[in-house]
């Protein structure tokens, strides 16, 4: 597919920042000796990614915004002391963490414990390589980008396991056991949900998915709302965020696999948790919410701003659930993944495959996409409702108000009608 965009190749066209960097590098290559330009490219990449992504997303939205928003949800102020509106709080935290001693407990497996944060950090950075930030702003436009994302995002599980196992602490071991036990459960529905998207768009490249959504002027979230729901739940389990922060459940196992970490080693885990959440949000924005395209608006607004905005929108939902929901138990999460999400994901896959067949084989008009969208939204709601009823979900049977008795006495038998199930 051709790139349908107004973006020009001029360096001052800030709608695509790669123009600027290319211009600088080409200019530098003429002056500087051969090879130095690579170093310069790395430096520019570092500075640019810091200014465009790390500072606004990781630090301001990720650390500051999350704390501030959750603070407001909990009717308190959140950080408001360091800098204007407390904006420098993340930096103050980082300085404090670097000064702290990173303890290693006696009897810990030192090498593994030392390596775990490093292995945890690297994939978080790698994940952004395949996210398209604009028509040409993509580091590695590889064909199996979606698979790359899945592959790389399975690595932090191992790092977390290493962290938990090496610390010689029972709580850490609990966290490690939980994260390993969970990982297979949620990855199966996650992959099945994304398979539906791949099936419909016919590509595993993220850039082409964005172009597909731009071409047909419809976001995949409308075509496959069920896939997005499953993706969201599964990825929040993968990211260890409430309501599925089972591996670091604070009220149960102190901090799970992070219990024995302190100082910047802990800070790396904390910072990269946000990095993963942002990467997962950016991925969801790309696959489900049209990426850098915005119904023609991307001609005027820089596309990288659009995708960063969508990423933050998705990240806000993460913050929101974190501020609202209690935590699931591990067996409940696994039962939910296998008994609910997996069948529903399979259903979604069958539905999408049928529609794709119809659409391609019958050579239907593009407007049929909108019919599919309506059908799929209703099918998603129906599937969720019907399958949960089938699994025995009967909320109306659960009494939510205590019974009232006016006289003190002994046991008051429960009337048969009010006997609730789960």
């Amino acid at each position, binding site marked *: 597919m051709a790139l349908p965009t107004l973006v020009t190749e001029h360096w001052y066209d800030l709608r695509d920042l790669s123009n600027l960097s290319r211009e600088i590098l080409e200019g530098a290559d003429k002056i500087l000796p051969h090879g130095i330009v690579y170093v310069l490219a790395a430096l520019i990449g570092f500075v640019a990614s810091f200014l465009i992504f790390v500072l606004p997303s990781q630090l301001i939205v990720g650390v500051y915004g999350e704390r501030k928003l959750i603070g407001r949800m909990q009717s308190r102020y959140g950080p408001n002391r360091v800098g204007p509106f407390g904006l420098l709080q993340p930096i103050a935290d980082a300085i404090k963490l670097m000064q702290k001693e990173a303890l290693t407990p006696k009897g810990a497996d030192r090498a593994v414990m030392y390596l775990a944060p490093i292995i945890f950090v690297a994939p978080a950075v790698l994940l952004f390589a395949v996210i398209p930030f604009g028509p040409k702003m993509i580091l590695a436009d590889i064909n199996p980008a979606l698979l*790359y994302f899945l592959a*790389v995002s399975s690595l932090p599980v191992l790092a977390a396991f290493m962290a938990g*196992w090496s610390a010689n602490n029972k709580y850490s071991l609990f966290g490690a056991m939980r994260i390993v036990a969970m990982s297979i459960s949620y990855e199966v529905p996650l992959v099945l949900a994304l398979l539906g998207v791949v099936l419909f768009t016919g590509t*595993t490249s993220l850039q082409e998915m964005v172009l597909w959504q731009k071409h047909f002027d419809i976001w995949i979230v409308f075509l496959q709302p069920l896939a997005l729901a499953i993706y969201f739940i599964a990825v929040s389990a993968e990211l260890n965020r409430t309501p599925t922060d089972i591996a670091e459940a604070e009220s149960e196992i102190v901090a799970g696999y992070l219990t024995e970490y302190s100082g910047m080693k802990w800070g790396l885990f904390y910072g990269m948790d946000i990095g993963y959440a942002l990467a997962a949000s950016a991925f969801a924005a790309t696959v489900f919410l049209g990426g850098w395209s915005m119904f023609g608006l991307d001609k005027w607004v820089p596309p990288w701003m659009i995708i960063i905005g969508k990423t933050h929108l998705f990240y806000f939902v993460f913050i929101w659930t974190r501020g609202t929901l209690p935590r699931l138990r591990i067996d409940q999460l696994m039962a939910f993944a296998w008994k609910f999400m997996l069948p529903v994901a399979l259903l979604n896959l069958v539905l999408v495959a049928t529609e794709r067949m119809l659409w391609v084989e019958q050579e239907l008009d593009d407007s049929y996409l909108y019919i599919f969208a309506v059908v799929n939204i209703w099918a998603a709601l129906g599937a969720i409702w019907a399958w949960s009823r089938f699994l025995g979900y009967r909320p109306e049977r659960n009494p939510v108000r205590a019974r009232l008795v006016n006289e003190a006495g002994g046991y008051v038998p429960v009337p048969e009608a009010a006997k609730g199930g789960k």
Partner: protein
Amino acid sequence: MEGFGVNFAFWTLSAVTLGAAGGVVVSRNLLHAVLFLILAFIGVAGFFVLLSAEFIAMAQVIIYVGAISVLVLFAVLLTPRAGRDNGETAMALPALLLAIAVATVFIFVVNDTNWTTVAKSPELATAELGTALLSTWVLPFELASVLLTAALVGAIMLVRSREEEAEDALA
């Protein structure tokens, strides 16, 4: 293969993969051995990337690093006395012989194969792989899935016969 970068990557990956494989054998802590094994898997995935077989590289990471190593970790965690000193084992000699035999077979196969370079766009490799799996090689493909299903059912049967309580643990 051309260029300094590719050569450098090849030799680095070789060193990492072989070193990790050696680590699996030498390391006395079972969990360290598993971690070395994962490193070896990742090294192999790197080789696939070097060969422009990106899809297979990703599959290698997803399946071996993401799924199989997790199962191995499970197995190690469930093994009694996993942290014991695995210094001497009765299986050392048979394992060595087996390794030599497998290596011999592989070397013969590598030598006897007529390697040709196909000038083909790697972009199409994934689609062609899919088509081939579902047309030419559909029988082995389906057989493999039947085998995996059987293994799954078998695993469930094994667990179930051990303990009936497992059923209501999930309820």
